């Protein structure tokens, strides 16, 4: 599949072919719980939702592991020290400025965004900001190799 082919496919069409949701964790989940969820689903991205099914923030696997295995780090900043001692929840370390795709976009635009921000699982949001699905980079790559 070429770039022109991806440009013709919309996110909505892609989701019909690959319907799936991202890994969602509770706001008060511990780092161990987030890491377990990510390992279980073999994903590198987790998201936190609010009660209206809107995405509050994003957690990357690297970010979570950085907190989880902080005792293996020989140097800590003050921020890392406090974080290590107080054991943060998922909500406390999530990035509220996550990147996302919208239903009417073409896949071509989405791939560029995923590569630029280093996100494997990109959330897709409806016009009202509610979560409707996700796009996995590995599936896009697999499709492009066909």
């Amino acid at each position: 599949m070429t770039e022109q082919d991806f440009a013709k496919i919309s996110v909505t069409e892609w989701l019909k072919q690959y319907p799936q949701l991202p890994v969602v964790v509770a706001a008060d989940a511990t780092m161990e719980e987030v890491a377990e969820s990510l390992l279980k689903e073999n994903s590198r991205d987790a998201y936190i939702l609010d009660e209206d099914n809107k995405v509050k923030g994003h957690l990357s696997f690297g970010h979570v592991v950085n907190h989880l295995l902080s005792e293996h780090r020989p140097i800590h900043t003050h921020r890392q020290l406090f974080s290590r001692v107080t054991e943060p929840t998922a909500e406390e370390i999530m990035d509220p400025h996550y990147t996302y795709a919208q239903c009417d976009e073409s896949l071509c635009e989405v791939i560029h965004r995923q590569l630029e921000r280093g996100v494997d699982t990109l959330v897709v949001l409806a016009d009202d900001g509610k979560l409707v699905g996700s796009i996995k980079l590995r599936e896009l790559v697999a499709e492009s190799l066909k």
Partner: protein
Amino acid sequence: MMSSPLLILGVLLVTGLLLSLVASRLNLPRIAAYAIAGLIWSEDLLGGVYHFDISQWSYSLTTVALAIIAYTIGGSVTTEQLRRLGRVITFCTVGESLGAVLVVTLAVYFYQPTIEGPVWVLAIVLGVLAATTAPAATVAVIHQYRAKGPLTTTLLGVVALDDMFGIILFSLMLVLVGGANLGDAVLTSGLHIFGSLILGSAMGLLLAFFGNKVLKQAFFLPMVLSAILLSQGIAEILHVSPLLTAIMLGFSARSVYQAGGERLFEPVEYLEELVFIIFFTLAGAHFKLSVFMQGVDLVIIYVFARVIGKMLGIYIAARVVSAPETVRQYLGFGVVPQAGIAIGLALALLNRPELQDIALLVLNVILASTLIYEIVGPMATRYALVKAGETR
């Protein structure tokens, strides 16, 4: 006279970096290497030969460097995290910090060293400088011995928190000693502190607001540095405490921005090593043998009194909050190291007109005692962790 500040700074930094490479090969502390690099270019050695003049410009550099550290420390913790630290860590931090301040102040005051100016000012300045510790040295020992347990956790919390406490105490001390008399000092200090909190909070809110608007990672470092510089400039014009302003800037930005604050703090945290090289090389370059010889006895008093004060303070605080036995007995040994922040604060005294008589003496005392703590501190921390049975 070599008057190019950029050339002098470049020479200091390059010498510091080269010596730190040698130090890492020989497994010696790198901050000692930075200090020795500065020492080489001090007035008594090569700095005298090449007529290095650092007094004209080092103040601005120290102010900015200290503001960066204060900003990162202010933003290192949220109110929720402070609440979760718990009574043991909070009480022990207050205990060891105030214990060191009190014992050092009293020891220096009753020793009555021969100096120009009032002894009580020197006693209070050295006392307040005794509060901070060196988290880097403590974390390195904990990592080396893979320590884990109640003492380790408490120690990590205490060394993180006492630097913030130490900087706040230092800011208050500067405001107090700046007053013409006690009544004036109390009145103006209230205004200065209140002004710093308002200014820092307002700047923090603005920084967080723009932080939420900007998405490009590359903009965060210039944005944060601009906020720090602007807040320092306004603090200077308004005659409020620049350090308190910087702490409050970080604290309020982190509180409003929420969620870890990586974007607002990580880019500046990368500058910490550069800041410490600047602190130690500048402090080394300010070394003066004649001043040091005048203060050798003060170094001994400071080193012992600070350790005694910290241990006493922790013992009392730990008893009050019924801390675990290992914390009560050994935490005091863990907080012996002292390094960069104390040096930075001591450097900041050099441009205070009301402290002109003692600033250089204080800097030399702190520099010498830091080097002693750099050797003794890690050994004391290791002793505490081993005795508490938390090493592996």
